[in-house]
């Protein structure tokens, strides 16, 4: 396939189509609406299902029903819309159905704004709907990676009968860059043995998330955990940059990771042995790889477009071996490379101590900056 200039949202939609998605249900919300619009044109011309639902609540429950038929199905939304989907996602998890969701994250909390953010990390990676379940979460840092991870998402969802979330941010959804789309895969011809498609010539099947006897529900919870353990063993994904001799390791994902790469390169030019560790699977999280890096790094710098939600996972991996520092931008703000470069320079220059909560020092350093910016309001 030739490389084309593609917008992230359209690229993810087209990648899903080529991966064989049979039905899409969604609702307009910025900055992901191009996904909905792309499906609205392409799905009918391919004879597949597109439906704009009355709400994200309805959209995810349409996905729930459609997933019961054993077809590849999906939805997409942005942060406030994804909040509304949490009920349906929990039911989908409890029914052990493969579903793909793309969350193009925007600034929050509340209505927030439509600028790029990573504020949904905790909601998607650690939380979400009620009850015990773990989705697979994949975080792209480019349009190409958004395409590749969308295709992968369908394969993983099918393999583990699980929810896979492509956690992009507004930057990935909105920006255009050259990328290559995958070939069009044929639609599924045979459906899984659990699919509900009418009891023609077989015993009836029921798909449900209710197990009224707690003993039965515990069996389901245990099965979900066994699958999650397989996922943790097999599906950890990450990218490493300049880590062979790195003393100072920046950890960032998605757009924050990509901006950090520019800063790392600049730091290298200045003779600082910096490197970048970019988690691609946020769930399962690459704890073991980070723990190994903690054996030889002098310090870590975690950078995110939120108040340090992934930071807790890095702290969990590093286990207090070396200092972990934090630099974040929030509310839809995206860091510039020079901001992260300044942090790398500071960490490389100053003696650091191991802190229980690196956010406190960051907030102290950041307070003047925020006050200067806020004074314009």
């Amino acid at each position, binding site marked *: 396939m030739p490389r084309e200039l593609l917008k992230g949202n359209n690229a993810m939609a087209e990648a899903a189509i080529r991966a064989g998605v049979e039905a899409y249900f969604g609702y307009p919300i910025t900055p992901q609406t191009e996904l909905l619009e792309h499906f609205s044109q392409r799905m009918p011309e391919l004879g597949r299902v597109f439906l704009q639902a009355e709400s994200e609540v309805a959209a995810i429950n349409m996905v729930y029903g459609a997933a019961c038929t054993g077809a590849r199905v999906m939805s997409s939304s942005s942060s406030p819309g994804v909040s509304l989907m949490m009920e349906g996602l929990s039911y989908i998890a409890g029914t052990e159905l493969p579903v793909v969701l793309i969350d193009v994250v925007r600034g929050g909390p509340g209505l927030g704004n439509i600028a790029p953010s990573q504020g949904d990390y905790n909601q998607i990676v650690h939380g979400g709907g009620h009850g015990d379940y773990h989705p697979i979460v994949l975080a792209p840092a480019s349009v190409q990676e958004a395409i590749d991870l969308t295709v992968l998402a369908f394969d993983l969802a099918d393999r583990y009968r699980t929810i896979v979330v492509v956690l992009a941010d507004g930057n990935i959804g909105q920006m255009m860059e050259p990328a290559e789309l995958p070939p069009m895969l044929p639609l599924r011809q045979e459906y899984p043995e659990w699919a509900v498609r009418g009891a023609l010539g077989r015993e009836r099947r029921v798909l449900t998330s209710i197990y*009224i006897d707690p003993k039965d529900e515990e069996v389901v919870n245990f099965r979900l955990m066994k699958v999650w353990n397989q996922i943790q063993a097999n599906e950890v994904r990450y990218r490493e940059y300049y880590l062979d001799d790195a003393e100072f390791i920046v950890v960032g994902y998605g757009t924050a990771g990509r901006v950090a790469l520019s800063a790392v390169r600049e730091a290298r030019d200045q003779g600082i042995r910096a490197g970048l560790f970019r988690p691609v699977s946020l769930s399962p999280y690459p704890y073991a790889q980070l723990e190994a890096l903690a054996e030889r790094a002098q310090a870590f710098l975690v950078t995110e477009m939120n108040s340090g939600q992934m930071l807790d996972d890095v702290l969990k991996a590093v286990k207090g071996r070396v200092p972990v520092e934090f630099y974040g931008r929030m509310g839809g703000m995206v860091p510039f490379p020079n901001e992260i470069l300044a942090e790398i320079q500071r960490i490389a220059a100053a003696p650091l101590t191991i802190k229980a909560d690196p956010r406190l020092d960051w907030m102290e350093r950041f307070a003047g900056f925020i006050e200067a910016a806020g004074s314009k309001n």
Partner: protein
Amino acid sequence: MESTPEGQVVYQRPASLADVPSHYCPGCTHGIAHRLIAEVLDEMEVRERAIGVAPVGCSVFIYNYFDCDFVEAAHGRAPAMATGIKRLLPDRVVFAYQGDGDLASIGMAEIMHAAGRGENITVIFINNAIYGMTGGQLAPTTLPGQKTTSSPTGRDVEVMGFPLRMSEILSTLDGAGYIVRRSLHDPKNIRMAKKAIRLAFEAQVRGLGFSMVELLSTCPTNWGIDPLEALRWLEEHMIPVYPIQDFKVAPTIAGLRI
């Protein structure tokens, strides 16, 4: 049929109904509604093409009682889930079974838009004017003055508003092909309900849009009266508020003789 009068089967369990005891309270009309649906699935020979969508409420375990494929929806979302199935499998017979809290309160958006889209699904709507499974709280269909565990002095319309007449509301939508209200309080009305359920499924297989049969039902346990008294209470108090009526019947269905 070659059978003699003595050997003729006049009443038996429909094949679409599973041979298991139900969990419903004595005197509850859910069992009648289930049987009527099962008879219709049998008569139309669609059991193997049928996919039911169960609600949250007393009938949450309806899938145990039918010998056809079933899925279990979140509270109020059965029409959305049915939509997802029907859009992927348009030649299957997809039906949802919902109570009044499920359909007329938490699921109001989903039922309205499924009807508005003319979604080719059939909804059986059980209206017993109360929340059954949670133990008898105020429903959107609770009558003015009716006592429930969350309106202990009776539904005060100044504070709690008025009951919603869902069949009347939904019948205003262009996407609706068949909307009627029936009752399960006596044999004559049960026969009328059976015919309406048949016509609702006939509307679906003919692609005439959204179809719904509202069934006035009793809840002796939460109404706090015995089953016979409950049937009388339905007739005396519910029917004046919820008239037995055809609200929308597509011309093709009006002309159908079954």
